[in-house]
């Protein structure tokens, strides 16, 4: 869906059109949920964050700057909400990682589940600054400029954080014997 399609839907949302909101929800639900899941490593928490993000979006359409890209706004809210959630969770309980699904099955599926778990475990070792750039780059497919837009930091900082984060991930995932 193009930027102009998003704009049309947003204009309709501001007028209270629930169908337009549902169309945006259908488009962004999965990336928002995935970003939250990669940040938090917990499906229930990711569901709660996704719900909060869309409620905030719905309640704040009026404050959305139409000259900005909608996805930048949504992803920014998602990452900020996830970081807030992490803060709350860390205060309440020790960090709990979801266990990887290591149930039996075809060998390829088991390998894929192991890689997925190793990548997620490595992600969780990163600081939130590094984790956000990796998520935006590799899970949401954003360019350097788009990451800079979402995080409101200079492109140069994006590059530096991304390259440093990769170095840490390379060592962590390499240790797990994935390549």
């Amino acid at each position, binding site marked *: 869906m193009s930027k102009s399609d998003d704009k049309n839907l947003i204009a309709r949302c501001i007028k209270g059109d629930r169908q337009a909101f549902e169309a945006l929800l259908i488009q962004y639900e*999965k990336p928002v949920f995935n970003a939250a899941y990669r940040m938090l490593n917990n499906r229930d928490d990711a569901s709660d964050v996704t719900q909060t993000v869309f409620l905030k979006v719905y309640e704040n359409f009026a404050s959305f700057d139409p000259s900005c890209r909608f996805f930048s706004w949504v992803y920014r809210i998602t990452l900020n909400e996830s970081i807030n959630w992490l803060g709350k969770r860390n205060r309440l309980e020790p960090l709990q990682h979801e266990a990887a699904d290591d149930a039996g099955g075809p060998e390829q599926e088991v390998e894929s589940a192991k890689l997925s778990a190793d990548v997620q475990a490595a992600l969780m070792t990163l600081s939130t600054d590094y984790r956000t750039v990796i998520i935006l780059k590799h899970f949401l497919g954003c360019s350097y400029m788009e990451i800079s837009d979402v995080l409101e930091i200079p492109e140069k900082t994006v590059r530096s954080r991304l390259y440093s984060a990769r170095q840490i991930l390379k060592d962590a995932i390499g240790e797990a014997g994935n390549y």
Partner: protein
Amino acid sequence: MAITQEKMDLINAGIDGEISHQDEDRLAALLLENAEARALHAELQALCGSIESVEAVSPPPHLRHVIMNTIKPTPGKRRSPGFMEWLLAMPAFKYSATFAAGVILTLSAVSSDQHSNSALDDVTGLVGTIADPVRDDFLASTAVDNANVVGQVSLRSSGSMLILDFDLVANGPVEIDAQYPDRTIWFNGFGQLEASGTTISAKSGSVSLAMEGKRRYAVYLQNGGGQREITVNLRFSAGGEVIHETSLSYKPAD
């Protein structure tokens, strides 16, 4: 030969495809002449490939539905009243018009000797309720996301009525106890979208429901206490074990 930061940046940018034509040539030359750079390039490419091969996780199937149920309708822009609405909004005019209409109706009934309207006398087969449309207000809602049951329970008020809306999907038999300790609230009715599938029993201070599958239903409670704080405690059980507990509370604005 150690790889400088500048060369590391060049390799990373090349892998991301965020590189100028000029830098592409520089990267190609670097990889050709420097074995260490080639090794790093291969490692980073493998890393990015590994990360991007991780499959996206799917959100729970009910999540979209829950979000749509949670958002409150945005009040539409009020249109300016027309002349008749403006005129009828004036109490003096409204009472005069009602009085005049009553006088005209009485006179016409007397003059035509028509004291009975047979069409209205016979109400056999008349089914339904004619009532003033009453605005309902959303008060609170809670999402249920459990291995046995998922969905949403909302609390609305409509006049003196409280309405508990259940929109749930259960993968097996689930019992729900809705308890309202406030004795000024009592059970007043039940409605379900599906023709069957949910059973209900009510006693003083609580309602018990049993359901399975996808069910949408409403429990109507009479709020005899008027504008006071309301709490409904919900307890979900499956196989005799409590699987989820939550409550819906509403505090009226001062």
